[in-house]
């Protein structure tokens, strides 16, 4: 059974314009999915549907088999699907880190001991154990976002949804957050759904879903997706910078393979040319 399944989902905020139109998709347990699409394509609406912040007007979303539109399921679903949003300053609720991470498990009515265990687990998972007593407003953007993730992890969710969670961070903060997320996916088996504008963050995903004007327009591995340059362009998207440079080089008659996605691959291809010549 897929851990997440959307079946013919349509949604509108104002009952006039449909933000999502007949969207169907499945996510397997343990997958790392990237969702891309232009501003206003409906990506963030999807994130809200996944943890029952909103429910479909038509169609169904199932999380681990549970229908999100049934009220009695929603508490369990939100425990299971943690969402980290864009702005770290909007997500932290307490004046010290440990209280912030405790907020979720306390609301689950767990024992003191279990709450303690979950805080330890969550802070360790994001590499912030030594900041237990710190005040969130004194942390950097990357550290704040890691605390926001810890707050979500303390609920032991099976799915982690990142809604442009790195877009307000500096490069170092972005790296910190991505490393934590990759580790959670690889080592703890957490299913990750990352919504992003950074094509460089997409190249490591198991699968990429392209959303355009409220519909799933493409789905495939990063290689499959970025091969279709013209189609991507028509959706307002672009290639990762390394692929873009490779493309330009091919246009100018330089012999570079079509499969380049990363800077490292491009560098190797260029250095190989030197050996040939």
């Amino acid at each position, binding site marked *: 059974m897929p851990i997440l399944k959307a079946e013919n989902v349509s949604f509108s905020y104002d009952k006039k314009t449909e933000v999502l139109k007949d969207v169907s998709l499945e996510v397997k347990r343990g997958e790392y999915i990237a969702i891309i699409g232009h501003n206003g394509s409906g990506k963030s609406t999807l994130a809200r549907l996944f943890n029952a912040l909103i429910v479909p007007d038509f169609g169904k979303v199932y999380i681990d088999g549970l229908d999100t539109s049934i009220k009695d399921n929603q508490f369990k679903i939100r425990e299971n699907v943690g969402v980290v949003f864009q702005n770290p300053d909007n997500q932290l609720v307490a004046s010290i880190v440990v209280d912030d991470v405790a907020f979720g498990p306390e609301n689950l009515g767990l024992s003191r001991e279990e709450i303690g265990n979950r805080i330890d687990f969550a802070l360790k998972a994001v590499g912030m154990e030594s900041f237990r007593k710190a005040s969130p407003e004194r942390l950097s953007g990357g550290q704040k976002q890691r605390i926001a993730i810890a707050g979500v992890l303390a609920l032991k969710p099976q799915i982690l949804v990142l809604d442009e969670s790195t877009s307000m961070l500096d490069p170092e903060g972005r790296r910190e957050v991505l490393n934590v997320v990759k580790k959670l996916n690889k080592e703890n088996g957490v299913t990750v759904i990352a919504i992003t504008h950074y094509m460089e963050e997409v190249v490591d995903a198991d699968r990429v879903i392209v959303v355009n004007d409220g519909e799933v327009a493409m789905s495939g591995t990063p290689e499959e997706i970025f091969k279709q340059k013209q189609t991507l362009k028509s959706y307002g*998207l672009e290639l990762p910078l390394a692929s873009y440079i490779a493309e330009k*080089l091919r246009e100018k008659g330089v012999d570079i393979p079509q499969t380049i996605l990363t800077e490292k691959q491009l*560098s190797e291809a260029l250095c190989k040319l030197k050996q040939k010549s």
Partner: protein
Amino acid sequence: MQIKAEELKFVYGKGSSVSSHALNGVNLLVEEGEFYGIIGKTGSGKSTFIQHINGLLKVQKESGKIVVGEFDLTDKKCNFKNLRKKVGMVFQYPEYQLFAETVFDDVAFGIKNFMPETSSEHTTELVQQALELVGLDYDQIKDKSPFELSGGQKRRVAIAGVIVTKPEVLVLDEPVAGLDPKGKREFLTLLHSLNKSFVKTVIIVSHDMNVISENCTKVAVFKDGKVVLEGSPEQVYGGNDIIEVGLSKPVTQNLIDDLNKVGVKIDSGLSVESFTDSIARVFGGRK
């Protein structure tokens, strides 16, 4: 207008027990016409510095000086209102600062504020010009609520609200953060076209080294409240100082470095166009 900072210092919470030195003697010269990039890690003083350019932060006593065109900001008689008309400031995520009921009112706010004597006909004319300059259709958009626009459109409206008073200098903090790839490219194109209009100088703060190297004529690197590196993108990213400051290089520079290590010298600018031309020359592609 030239912008010149000399030994500029700034302390937050001056005199209190929690004071922190944000600027420790900044020396910087931005000539008219530049597309100037400011980079540095979080907390290096970039934002504190740019807030001095239009006098949002006042120069503290015995803390150096900053002169913007004819405005000496350390002078008690400095007319800050006129200065702010000449130096437009666009903060991070400016779309969150839209507030009026219609796009027209939002953009017109700057005129009411800086040029209250402007007639309503002339106001309409200026608003129309500003919206068209940022690539929006005046008739289509003027009566809309700013909140029903897309992210990229909102940001354009926010810029229109700043350029409506025709500033000569435009300072933008992280102008393309949060935009999708197409929005980003279009927005940078817009900044270049503004740079050729009445806006003579554009200054951007960014964490994205590829955006900086592709677009800027000059770059200043901030560290611990000082400018530690300054020059063309090729000068700033060419050596290893930039790594020691804790920043990274743009992709094109990394590729040039990698090729250099295997004995291929690439003499090229850092823009993708210049880089790919040079590679094509070296490896026998078409010109």
